């Protein structure tokens, strides 16, 4: 074959290329690029750091309420202690998903909210007075679930609980658990305030270890494992075939389990939409990122589909008892229905969203071809 034939073939391709290009030129708005750095800044400055500061404040409050209770164990100090515990537990739901930086390296989530808690181990720790809360074997003997057991589950009436808790060994354990929550969180929060914010924002590349990719993976992991499975799926028996009502979050206080779930879902939505923490304002986040790449995705409005799906999940909770343990025991079908709604959002995020954003659900940085 001679050169002129090659040129002929190439010119045919060239003409085809121009035609194909023309076809896609209807979206002039695409030319602006998406500012991932601005998104990271918004996440750090307006969502993550304020949420950690808020959480630390409520833990501070919890520490003080605990000290007051130990000093004067009575119904009133007990009530303010349980109220402070609930407040802190609620605000924890807003930082749980950010398992990055110091939170990841010290294992904040594992030390804070692993449930069901092991009450036998807790009792053993209390009676032996020898325990190392830094050991992974004590993950399920500390954090909010363990405090839930101590405050509501050690038996009998409120008076009896107060009496038991005011014993030296019990109050020591309670105190250790609460102080530990504060210390761990203080480490993470200070790290964000001192240097990590900058590092986080500067890591604005596109590799598998870049901040955007990591946070999105953390976000999905949290949603799938801790919110969908942990708070709803596992107690409803989705993964075992048998309902496990004791596996709900905070089973001893009982009535807060639905509230804690809703708080977690709200945190997920706020992050996705970019709502500034406890302010009426918002900045750019995943929703905007999805809307930015939307013209490339045959105009499927993925962001709206995801938000709508969460709306359906929330509407399913309306017929559900505040006490998820009770709900599982009396009418588990409603729990399963709620789970199904949460599950649909997993598909939208893991398949549609991840493809559109071209972020890999993959922690192994292996070759492709």
């Amino acid at each position, binding site marked *: 074959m001679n050169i002129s034939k*090659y040129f002929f*073939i*190439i010119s045919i391709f060239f003409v085809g290329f121009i035609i194909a290009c023309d076809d896609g030129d209807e979206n002039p708005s695409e*030319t602006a*690029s998406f500012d991932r750095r601005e998104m990271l800044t918004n996440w750090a400055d307006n969502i993550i750091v304020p949420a950690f500061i808020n959480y630390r404040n409520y833990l501070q409050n919890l520490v003080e309420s605990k000290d007051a209770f130990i000093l004067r164990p009575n119904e009133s100090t007990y009530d303010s202690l349980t109220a402070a515990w609930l407040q802190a537990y609620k605000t924890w739901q807003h930082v749980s998903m950010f398992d990055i930086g110091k939170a990841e390296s010290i294992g904040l989530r594992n030390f804070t909210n692993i449930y069901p808690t092991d009450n036998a181990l807790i009792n053993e720790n209390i009676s032996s007075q020898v325990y190392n809360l830094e050991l992974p074997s004590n993950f399920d003997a500390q954090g909010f679930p363990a405090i839930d057991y101590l405050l509501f589950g050690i038996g009998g009436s409120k008076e009896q609980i107060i009496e038991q808790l005011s014993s030296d060994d019990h109050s020591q354990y309670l105190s250790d658990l609460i102080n530990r929550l504060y210390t761990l969180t203080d480490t993470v929060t200070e790290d964000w305030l001192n240097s990590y914010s900058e590092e986080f924002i500067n890591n604005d590349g596109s590799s598998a270890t870049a901040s955007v990719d990591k946070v999105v993976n953390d976000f999905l992991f949290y949603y799938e494992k801790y919110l969908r499975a942990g708070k709803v799926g596992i107690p409803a028996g989705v993964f075992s075939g048998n309902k496990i009502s004791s596996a709900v979050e905070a089973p001893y206080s009982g009535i807060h389990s639905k509230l804690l779930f809703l708080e977690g879902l709200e945190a997920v939505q706020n992050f996705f939409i970019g709502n500034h923490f406890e302010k009426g304002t918002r900045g750019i986040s995943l929703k905007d990122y999805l809307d930015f790449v939307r013209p490339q995705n*045959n105009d499927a409005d993925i962001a709206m589909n995801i938000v709508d799906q969460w709306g359906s999940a929330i509407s399913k909770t309306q017929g559900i008892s505040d006490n998820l343990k009770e709900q599982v025991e009396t009418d588990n079908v409603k729990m399963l229905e709620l789970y199904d709604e949460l599950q649909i959002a997993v598909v939208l995020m893991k*398949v*549609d969203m991840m493809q559109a954003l*071209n972020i890999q659900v993959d922690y*192994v940085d292996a070759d492709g071809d």
Partner: protein
Amino acid sequence: MEKINKYLDQTTKAAPLAAFRIFFGLLMMLSIIRFWYHGWIEKLYLLPKMHFHYLGFEFVKVPGDYTYLLFVVCGLSALLVSLGYKYRVAIVVFFLTFTYIELMDKTTYLNHYYFISVLSFILIWLPAHRYFSVDAYKDSLVRSTYVKRWHIDILKMMLAIVYIYAGLAKLNSDWMLKAMPLTIWLPTKFDIPLIGSLMHEKWMHYLFSWGGAIYDITIVGFLLYKRTRVLAFIMVVIFHVLTRVLFPIGMFPYIMIFSAMIFFDHRFHDKLLGYLSKIFKINKSLFDKIETIRYDSIDKFAPIVLGVFMLFQLLFPLRFLAYPGNVFWTEQGYRFSWRVMLMEKTGYANYKIVNGVTGKRFYVQNDDFLTPTQQKQMSTQPDLILEYAHYLGNHFTSQGHEHVEVYVESYAALNGRKSQPFIDPNVDLMKKKINLSNRIFILPFND
């Protein structure tokens, strides 16, 4: 027939084949070291609880800690190939160990690993050790300045098959008319130097799509033609360096660049080997004295074996035509066909274990059984979805569950389309056999 015999008898200088052997061996050794260095032996082979098998190769198992030994043997044999020391044994060992490694888990399949198995199989039958090798250095009876012309042409032909099939696979409406999946992939490369800021431009997506297709289909032609050869080789370098920058494709670009040097004539390779001789103080003239051509007994069978093999290489990539449906969706006949960086497919597979008698059911947490990499691969490929279903069914049966039926609720999204149901959720996958017949449990693809 006479023409064929005449062609098979033509001889040529051995230098290009020797250079090919040296670089191939060296790059393979580097690949093995790199694989180890990145911790992939552990992550991809030792950590997973289960492995996905190739049909007919179920006997291939990950040999535990001996896997490291397998890599050592593979890497060392690659080095021996490069040196041309005990060449025939080395290349056979390399082919067997490398291929064994690739067969250990289907989720690690990459076209370029298959390419290496194919090349090393061809090299078994070629006298790549007769020139500029330790074997030839030590034994004058091995030495030969000439080899048969087809010994070099067959490598060119293999490269032509790879490029042209890769190019033809790109001639589909998503790639050519929608610039997919590059429209998804390129914008995330905003942080590469010089052209990063252009990566979100629509015309760039089309330029790369069309450029890639044209390149793949025509490059071998330009490499074969003497007057365009140098320019074409520069294109090879630019193209593959660019793919290296844009995509995580490891050693593949370098392998292709060095392989493409086979298109240069023997003068180029003589010079190249001359440089190497100077650097390593090798007496090259020793190899240039033997003008005769030597034969092994293997050379008698080689044309027949490789003739059949190349026919297989020509036909095997076309087997997708035997299946109904879109090959991107069903992936029946997708592998071993040079479909390289061709589509963006994301999936999700949620398994349901049902007691067929009582109807009692529960869902599986894939994390309990598969690594993230395996989950990602499994969720988009029907054969893996089926194999995993069987694994789960057997696992739960052995755990004491009765009348186990396995269903999957799965979704996949192809090239930026909205996700859609992938596998029929009403089919008990335990009842579906793992074989090559058309997988009717794959739901139709709606474009």
